[in-house]
């Protein structure tokens, strides 16, 4: 039992709640999950002026206490003290957007009715002023009956005052919570509007930035063109900007590997470290720069408010595939990783929309597939360019992403007519104000996501590489034998090979398919491990690309790429699907249909390429 006082930060979506939470707690946050549900729990510590530590928890954004999504249900349950794994908060910080009081005060009024010690943070007060809105915080305080502090979370303004107010609030004797009859929502809304109107000192009509930007970014013609350009830039950036740091990381890994290799005596230990750990984990770490760039793009799109506009533009197309524009954000997040993407489907209210989105999310090209794509493209596609700034390699990568998207939309369409029939399909979301993203908030998000990736590289991938190294190293090959033929892994691969030989896969690929289930990027690590074990006669470590281009034919490489567009997903995705769909039925269905798709796509690619004489 944690004795620290617990303060919950609550508010409507787009009130700047997370920015305020970041400003209060800094980068030292814990990200976990509420038990039984997959709603993220963000918590952090704050030390008050008198040295007392308190725990702060950032509740999911909610419009009211009668939930319309699982996220909102968690917020309600925590506030009512009914959430498993969370004690009831001792105090509340309610965050409201100063320029949207008519709406945000409704939830604030509902929360104040709970009777907990409460402070209202009148956030983004600078943007309200910019929009010509002059507010009377004292009047608001009198109307609400709780302290109101003006804040600009992204500029850390009002944060010290908020801490002082928290200090006072927690020092005062708290009154017990009384059960109250909840006031009807519509009445609260009307009262919220009255208070908001009363709190306005003056309002001068100003042509708002957001409206000007929207008239361009949501323009019927310019809007989709700009969206396509942003996505294209994102994928070109992933390929080009990452080259320098990736090359440096690769060179460093090779150098350290060679150095340790020289220092260690020949034997199983040297083999484990060089062929297992360095060749395996090293091959994945090298792709960190690309994954970081992708995450950074997604975070910036999210924090500027553009992500929702993308959903708006895409909604009609998504709805023709039986999905909602809301699915666009989880699916776009799945470009980084299907696990957070599938978890983000919680914001989709309609259960059938949500299930369909979950089932097709693994078709989005996740960053774990990027190492595989990058390696094969670098080894087989020439680095030529077809125009200024447009490289063939980037185009192929773009094409693979497009293939994944097309596959997902097609799969959704079929699923909606067969196994996930019915349901209205809805799209209702707020278009928040555009904001310049704050570097620190993007950095915190980037760090949290990177930590998850590195943890995976450090645990699942390391374990898988070591097991695979053992399977690939024993029994030892005699003179004149190839290690990859006589080992245990070789025999398992022989079995897989008979199944995948018709679609052009060689034995190396067969060997990589099984560990790829643990995490997709392990396929690269696995191939790396196999080749370095076979390469006893070669001088030092060669790059994996050099080894590959000599051993695979182009049709095989292309078939391998096609396989990975549709490939059955990693164990973590299956696990999160089981959790999000409450059972084994849907994850098993997902694995099955993806296997069939991948097999057919790889086969078609291989035989087309062979027929074209590539």
């Amino acid at each position: 039992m944690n004795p620290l006082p617990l303060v919950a930060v609550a508010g409507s979506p787009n009130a700047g709640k997370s920015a305020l939470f970041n400003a209060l707690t800094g980068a030292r946050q814990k990200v976990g999950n509420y038990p039984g549900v997959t709603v993220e729990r963000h918590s952090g510590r704050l030390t008050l002026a008198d040295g007392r530590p308190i725990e702060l928890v950032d509740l999911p954004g909610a419009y009211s206490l009668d939930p319309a999504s699982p996220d909102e249900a968690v917020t309600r349950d925590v506030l009512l003290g009914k959430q498993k794994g969370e004690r009831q908060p001792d105090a509340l910080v309610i965050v409201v957007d100063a320029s949207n009081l008519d709406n945000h005060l409704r939830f604030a009024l509902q929360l104040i009715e709970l009777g907990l010690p409460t402070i209202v943070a009148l956030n983004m007060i600078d943007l309200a002023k910019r929009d010509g809105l002059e507010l009377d915080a004292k009047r608001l305080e009198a109307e609400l009956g709780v302290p109101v502090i003006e804040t600009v979370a992204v500029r850390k303004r009002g944060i010290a005052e908020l801490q002082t107010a928290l200090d006072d609030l927690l020092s005062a004797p708290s009154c017990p919570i009384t059960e109250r009859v909840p006031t009807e929502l519509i009445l609260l809304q009307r009262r919220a509007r009255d208070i908001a109107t009363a709190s306005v000192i003056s309002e001068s009509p100003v042509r708002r930035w957001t409206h000007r930007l929207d008239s361009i970014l949501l323009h019927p013609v310019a809007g989709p063109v700009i969206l396509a350009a942003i996505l294209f830039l994102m994928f070109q950036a992933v390929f080009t900007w990452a080259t320098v740091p990736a090359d440096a990381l690769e060179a460093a890994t090779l150098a350290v590997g060679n150095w340790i290799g020289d220092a260690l005596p020949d034997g199983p230990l040297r083999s484990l470290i060089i062929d297992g750990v360095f060749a395996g984990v090293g091959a994945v770490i090298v792709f960190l720069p690309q994954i970081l760039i992708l995450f950074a793009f997604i975070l910036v799109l999210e924090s500027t408010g553009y992500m929702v506009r993308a959903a708006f533009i895409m909604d009609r197309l998504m709805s023709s595939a039986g999905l909602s524009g809301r699915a666009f954000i989880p699916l776009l997040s799945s470009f980084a990783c299907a696990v957070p993407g599938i978890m983000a489907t919680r914001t989709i209210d309609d259960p059938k929309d949500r299930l369909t989105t979950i089932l097709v999310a693994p078709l989005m090209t996740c960053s774990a597939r990027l190492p595989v794509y990058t390696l094969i493209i670098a080894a087989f596609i020439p680095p030529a360019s077809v125009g200024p700034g447009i490289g063939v390699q980037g185009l192929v990568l773009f094409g693979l992403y497009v293939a994944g998207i097309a596959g997902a939309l097609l799969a959704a369409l079929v699923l909606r007519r067969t196994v996930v029939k019915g349901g209205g399909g809805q799209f209702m979301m707020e278009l928040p104000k555009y904001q310049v993203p704050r570097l620190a908030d993007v950095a915190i998000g980037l760090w949290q996501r990177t930590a998850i990736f590195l943890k995976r590289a450090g645990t699942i991938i390391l374990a898988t590489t070591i097991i695979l190294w053992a399977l690939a190293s024993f029994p030892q090959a005699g003179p004149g034998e190839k290690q990859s033929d006589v080992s245990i892994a070789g025999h398992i691969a022989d079995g897989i090979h008979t199944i995948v030989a018709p679609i052009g896969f060689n034995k190396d690929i067969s060997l990589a398919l099984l560990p790829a289930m643990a995490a997709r990027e392990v396929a690269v690590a696995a191939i790396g491990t196999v080749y370095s074990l076979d390469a006893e006669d070669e001088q030092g470590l060669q790059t994996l690309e050099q080894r590959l281009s000599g051993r695979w034919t182009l049709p095989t490489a292309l078939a391998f790429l096609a396989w990975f567009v549709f490939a059955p997903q990693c164990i973590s995705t299956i696990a999160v699907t089981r959790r999000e769909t409450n059972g084994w039925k849907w994850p098993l269905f997902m694995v099955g249909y993806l296997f069939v798709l991948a097999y057919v796509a790889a086969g078609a690619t291989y035989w087309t390429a062979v027929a074209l004489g590539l």
Partner: protein
Amino acid sequence: MNAPFQPESISLDQLQIGLRASIASIDWDTLEDGEAARLRHFGFDEGVTVEPLHLGPFGRDPLAIRVGRMTVAIRRSHARAVRVLPVA
């Protein structure tokens, strides 16, 4: 809780972009529970001023509507449930 039908009212999806109107009535019964709750969360209520700002590029759907100080996106099919009186 349906208000009496006002003949001069039009449905929100028929309202021209950039024209302001006041909500006359909302046909809650044509909406599913979750959808109705969200519309209420967005502040849809009789007497509230709304203004369509943008249309989705494909099939003029969804609609971006200014309601109070917020801009929200809803589909055309849901906008049909809202009857409005254009403000002169």
